[in-house]
């Protein structure tokens, strides 16, 4: 029944999807946190930059961003991100695009988390003489992160699904393989079911696991 899978590297394609997801998750978490810090910080220019970044990126289709990494960054700016061949170059460009896009949502999730931290926490921190950076990194962010595990899990699930857009610049991940397979094989419904199952396997545990973590680490108030 599943002999149509022969000759296709299904696991390899999902492995690329997973790599795209994990690397982009890491980079977008870092960049998103920096953006959130700028957005609530005391320097007006940085606040303006972070706000503009989030507003522009959130309103741009990811497809446009990903295609631009190839046509703009690769072709015009000659950005290779240290890759030796085209395959790894476009993989890295896809990670770059996904991270730049997802960071905007991480920033928004974190900011809503910062808003849930009680006023008294920051006031007490300032009262004992902590600077803005200390208030943010020692008092506010640790609590904010614990309250936004749920929203961040949603961002991560969305990111997992968004990695399929990398197919637009020919990164050999799951969606590209599916496109190739349904063009060459007749078992459309079965093929779609296999790929759907693959993504359910990738996204459902993330939601359940992080949901459980979120409940455990939540700050009781």
């Amino acid at each position, binding site marked *: 029944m599943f002999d149509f899978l022969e000759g296709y590297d299904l696991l390899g394609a999902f492995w690329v999807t997973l790599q795209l997801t994990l690397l982009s998750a890491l980079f977008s978490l870092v960049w998103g946190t920096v953006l959130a810090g700028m957005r609530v910080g005391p320097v007006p220019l940085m606040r303006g930059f972070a706000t503009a970044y989030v507003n522009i990126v959130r309103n741009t289709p990811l497809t446009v961003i990903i*295609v631009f990494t*190839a*046509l703009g960054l*690769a*072709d*015009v700016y000659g950005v290779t991100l240290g890759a030796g*061949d085209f395959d790894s170059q476009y993989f890295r460009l896809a990670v770059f695009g996904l991270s730049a896009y997802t960071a905007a949502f991480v920033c928004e999730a974190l900011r809503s988390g910062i808003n849930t931290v009680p006023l008294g926490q920051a006031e007490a921190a300032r009262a004992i003489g902590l600077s803005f950076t200390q208030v943010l990194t020692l008092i506010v962010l640790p609590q904010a992160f614990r309250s936004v595990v749920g929203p961040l899990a949603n961002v991560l699930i969305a990111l997992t699904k968004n990695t399929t857009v990398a197919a637009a610049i*020919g990164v050999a991940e799951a969606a590209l393989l599916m496109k190739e397979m349904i063009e060459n094989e007749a078992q459309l419904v079965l093929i779609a079911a296999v790929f759907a199952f693959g993504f359910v396997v990738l996204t459902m545990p993330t939601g359940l696991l992080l949901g459980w973590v979120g409940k455990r680490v939540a700050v009781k108030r």
Partner: protein
Amino acid sequence: MKFRKASAAAAAAAALALTVTACGGDGSTDDSAGDGSGTGKITVGIKFDQPGIGLKEPDGSFSGMDVEVAKYVAGELGYDEKSITFKETKSADRETALQNGDVDFIIASYSINDERKQKVDFAGPYFLAHQDLLVRADDTSISEATDLNTKNLCSVTGSTSAQNVKNDFAKDAGLVNRGGYSECLGALQNKVVDALTTDDSILAGYAAQDQYKGKFKLAGLNLSNENYGIGVKKGSDLTAKINEALEKMVSDGSWQKVMDETFGPAGYEFEPAPKIGELK
């Protein structure tokens, strides 16, 4: 802000019905200026994005060799220019468009080969093109296909030309895929890739565009023969009629005139008109 479910659902249903009926009716019928004479229309599939072959111009008109051949053939079949509707048939959609009857025939740099012949019938050939390479004008390092082993090639997603070069001549060539030829030209211009490969007729059209003039040249390699045919639905009686029209087009000199006008400015030396039914 009162928002009741019943009215919302009704509005949604009405909007849906409206849009769906509107959808069925549009399409590209706006191209065929309705003169109301009811003498019948003919729909021809062409490319919309290949200068010199089939291109949708900014004013909404169409230009290129395929368009001119289509007009001549349609004229011989008894349709004047006004009753021709041009539809875009991308490479991957051509067989389905004929099988579904979306178009009456297709003139879209459509090479005759055995695999396609199983699905559709071909009239012609009306043109003989060769697969070739487009390289930067100042690049002298590519004189034969094997030179590509140390170079990078650009190809259009869904096209097999570049893969063929890689399989037959240069196994170690790097391969980049882009959505269209103009994206490939950008990469070629910026030295991200060293060559773009497809039929010389298509490459010549791009090289002759104002913005690219003098920047690129054809390498002049005959990597393959591409016999352009006119695709029709399998078993259709149009094939014989189109063949007659094509023969007349060659014999009355219109063929030569169209090709001179199209490819003359590009400096592309095209092969003489092929004989109907004779593949090279």
